[in-house]
């Protein structure tokens, strides 16, 4: 009788346990950075709700996030040099290291085993084991006379277990190949003055760096790295008038459709339309302010644009067929970022000074949900895990 009761008890106990640990996937999860409080929300896009808040992530001004290939872990790169691995299912910090004094972003390798972080202070790139966060390689970005380190920007992953990045002070692009035991680094010098950000095309073929110090863009064809860096769109930039730029446009979100690339003009209230085959400009679309992010809905049918201070309460939706603005939306003050769900039926928009994230239906362009958030900035969905350069 006693044994029977014990078995019954054990049975009930494990049944309870199973209910408590309800199984769930991570494909509809994402994170919202709360920049002022060093925290982030874990959200889900199926019911548009906040699941958890994770705190203790340090200085998150200009934070960015990549995901492990199993979409379970988020790697958060903080401004204070912190690299934090967050378990999305347990909603807690799994590992955290302070890897430098001041960092700007990071990337995860093609095979998911390496995390690279680009740094402002002391400069250079550090590469970590994605599991243990132990240092695997330290790449000081020495330039010029070889005594000073450059701030590193525009760090992305590329096919073939490579990382590509740009030296802001040095005016160089470096291609670091981690496919062999000893990393191999190829340097491209004199690529232009003050590269300030970089992107890789979604197919992983072209790396493009934006230049602050001169007009034009630097392009590296990763199928033919032996051909060196070429200058494209020689009139892309601030031009001779040198309009004040209150926030430099981001390149990461550059919208690419089959035929066109949509780029934020620098210092002008325009979105530029460029032929992807020959990088010639085809048109410019007048918009509400200086564009910051110009992002295509995953199917390429729409492009969404947000703007720099002081016009940053607005988002505009461009029809990529007619090149006309379909609608102007006002999500709230200081719109910082936008993120599409993987198949593009929703877009999540952060309005920093309004203290909320607004979710839009991309067909009706109506707001379908609002989530309160503490100074929200970047929004990152787990589907980035399977996209080169994100």
């Amino acid at each position, binding site marked *: 009788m006693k044994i029977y009761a014990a078995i019954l008890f054990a049975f009930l106990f494990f049944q309870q346990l199973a209910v408590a640990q309800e199984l769930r996937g991570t494909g509809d999860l994402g994170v919202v950075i709360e920049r002022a409080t060093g925290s982030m929300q874990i959200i889900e896009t199926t019911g548009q709700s906040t699941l958890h808040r994770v705190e203790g992530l340090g200085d998150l001004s200009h934070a960015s996030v990549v995901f492990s290939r199993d979409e379970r872990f988020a790697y958060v790169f903080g401004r204070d040099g912190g690299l934090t691995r967050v378990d999305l299912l347990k909603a807690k910090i799994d590992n955290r290291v302070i890897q430098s004094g001041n960092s700007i972003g990071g990337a995860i390798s093609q095979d998911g085993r390496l995390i690279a972080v680009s740094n402002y202070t002391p400069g250079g790139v550090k590469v970590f084991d994605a599991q243990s966060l132990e240092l695997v390689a330290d790449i000081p970005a020495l330039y010029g006379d070889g005594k000073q380190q450059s701030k590193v920007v525009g760090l992305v992953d590329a096919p073939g277990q490579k990382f590509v990045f740009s030296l802001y002070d040095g005016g160089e692009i470096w291609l670091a190949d981690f496919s062999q035991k000893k990393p191999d680094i190829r340097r491209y010098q004199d690529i232009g003055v003050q590269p300030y950000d970089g992107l890789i095309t979604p197919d992983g073929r072209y790396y493009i760096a934006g230049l602050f110090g001169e007009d034009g863009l630097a392009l590296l064809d990763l199928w033919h790295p032996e051909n060196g860096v070429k200058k494209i769109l020689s009139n892309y930039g601030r031009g001779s008038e040198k309009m004040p730029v209150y926030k430099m446009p981001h390149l990461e979100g550059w919208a690419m459709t089959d035929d066109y690339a949509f780029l934020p003009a620098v210092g002008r209230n325009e979105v530029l339309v460029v032929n992807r085959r020959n990088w010639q400009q085809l048109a410019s679309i007048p918009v509400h302010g200086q564009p910051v992010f110009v992002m295509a809905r995953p199917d390429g049918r729409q492009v969404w644009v947000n703007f720099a201070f002081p016009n940053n309460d607005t988002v505009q939706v461009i029809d990529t067929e007619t090149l006309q603005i379909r609608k102007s939306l006002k999500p709230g003050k200081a719109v910082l970022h936008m993120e599409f769900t993987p198949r593009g039926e929703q877009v999540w928009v952060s309005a920093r*000074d309004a203290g909320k994230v607004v979710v839009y239906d991309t067909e009706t362009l109506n707001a379908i949900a609002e989530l309160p958030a503490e100074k929200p900035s970047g929004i990152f969905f787990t589907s980035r895990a399977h996209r080169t350069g994100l």
Partner: protein
Amino acid sequence: MFSQVVYAVQSTALTASRTAELHNLLLQDCGSCHGMTLKGGLGPALTPEALQDKPREYIELTILNGRSGTPMPPWKDILTQDEIRWLVDILYSGIAP
């Protein structure tokens, strides 16, 4: 507690709501390049230690006119001289973040 400190440094006739806006601008918008704790990023650190050997006028003029050859834009179309002075007070006092 914090807002009282801010008022104590206020030297001009800026309204409380305007100084709150300026404070937010400093941390959030200036902070996008200089770091939210103003310890530097793409732009240099703006902590009192970093500013101590630079003259006030130089900092005020930099905000007013920007710095050519760097991403620092001129703010004269957006901020008044009084507002810039208020911001520089805050920077040197070290109470900004």
